């Protein structure tokens, strides 16, 4: 019934979020806020040269936003800034359009069910909006509104 949304991988990352901690030696960080849900997220990334060496997050949110942040931080490691921004676009397309699923998304395809739940798209994209701010180096809190 709701299994198309809450797939096993999503539930696993909700219950056991990966990279869920602050990062003392982060080179960039940004905060995201979804006023609709009250979801709050702080993202940390460590960039060396042009490559994301590490990524982590802290915050409180729903299952979708927590799993999204968890899976995003996993998928960012080793990516260049440009690759990360491309991935963001592909992830956004996955949630909001009917375009064929890109292979580059890897595990992130588990969020394809979100497109049938328009009210929840913002939950899945909160971490990614925050990533964009962090990569662009602007400091203010981003909101999904």
């Amino acid at each position, binding site marked *: 019934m*709701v299994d198309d949304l809450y797939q096993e991988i999503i539930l696993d990352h909700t219950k056991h979020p990966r990279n869920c901690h602050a990062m003392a030696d982060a080179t960039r960080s940004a905060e995201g806020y979804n006023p609709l849900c009250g979801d709050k997220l702080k993202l940390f990334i460590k960039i060396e040269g042009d490559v994301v060496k590490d990524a982590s997050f802290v915050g409180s*949110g729903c299952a979708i936003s927590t799993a999204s942040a968890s899976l995003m931080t996993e998928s960012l490691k080793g990516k260049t800034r440009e690759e990360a921004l491309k991935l963001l676009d592909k992830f956004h397309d996955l949630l909001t359009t009917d375009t064929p699923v890109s292979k580059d998304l890897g595990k992130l395809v588990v969020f394809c069910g979100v497109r049938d*739940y328009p009210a929840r798209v913002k939950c899945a994209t909160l971490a990614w909006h925050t990533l964009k701010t962090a990569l662009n180096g602007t400091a203010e809190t981003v909101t999904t509104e």
Partner: protein
Amino acid sequence: MSTVRNEIAAGFDVQKVREDFPVLKQTIHGMPLVYLDSAATAQKPFAVIDAIRKFHEVDCANIHRGVHELSQRSTAAYEETRSKARRFLNARYKNELIFVRGTTEGINLVASSWGRHNVKAGDEIVISAMEHHSNIVPWQMLCEEQGAKLRVIPMNGRGELILEEYEKLLNPRTRMVAVAHVSNALGTINPVRQIIEMAHQAGALALIDGAQAAPHMKVDVQALDADFYAVSGHKIMGPTGIGILYGKTALLNAMPPYQGGGDMIKTVTFEKTTYADLPYKFEAGTPNIAGGIGLGAAFDYLNHLGLDQIAAYEHELLLYGTEALLQIPGLRLIGTAREKAAVLSFVIEGIHPHDIGTVLDRQGIAVRTGHHCAQPVMDWFHVPATTRASLAFYNTAAEIDALAAGLKKVKEIFS
């Protein structure tokens, strides 16, 4: 539990009442719709739907000043709603009822028109900790503009206002006390009669946000001695975009218009405009005529069912729902006031309200999740959001059972 169900069934023919609401007869995601979001907006009976349809099909014309038949019919129907509103709220005079878009506009009208002319630097406005944003922000804006101070009546852990603290807030600088009759986020029924009396003793006026009270209980603005009382049509089974602001004649007469335009004037020249008398002074522009006529039908419908019968049935339903939810491990009710309307706001440990809302929706159950436009209430209870099941007289004990079963499914998924 079965005894409670029988008692509920005995006093009020809910199945017959449900026949009046076409929207309830549908399935959502293959399951019968269980609508538990009436505090956000109530569903509409045929009586209201038909009245709006008849207006558009048969009587449609602009109101006031038209000499033709259709205009006279629509004017009569629209103005008849004002008379019905007078009886519904037991106001003394018909001209004390102002048509507005809803409670929010009613409060803004008072904050703007009365506030700007009566609130000065150093004055104080008192609201409460459980207000909807619509009874916070207009006063905050007024205070910022005038250099006045906003003060807040605190509440206890059950979600009840602490009247001893309220008394301490009152002083000769207090100009207005603006409080909800019933809290939308918690369901608390506030002792507004006492709150108003205390305000008056301090020389202040009192505005009551009646959005959540009017659908559930008899309101008597004279018995309450309210200076202003605002309601929304769509919460009392009427259409959206129409509401009523009650104000005492002397206060309304002394207030300047809220908006300028057609219908609110006596004479207009480029040198000087004189304003219409009450209530038209506050009703600039073509109003929501269809909405007003639909609201009239809603008043008739509620009177036909009887507000006392509605209140008694909903109270039984609230007791039944409270008992059912408290049996769910890890569930905490937010708002457990001793005097409470049929609102069940809750959190479940470790599960975000939006996930609860989505899983319930897939079972056909409509609840509201989030901060319910009452962020200070959420902050007070240290929760980011709650899930809120708000009941109306068309809900049944079986629907409460469906909610409880739905929540068990939620727990299975996320545990």
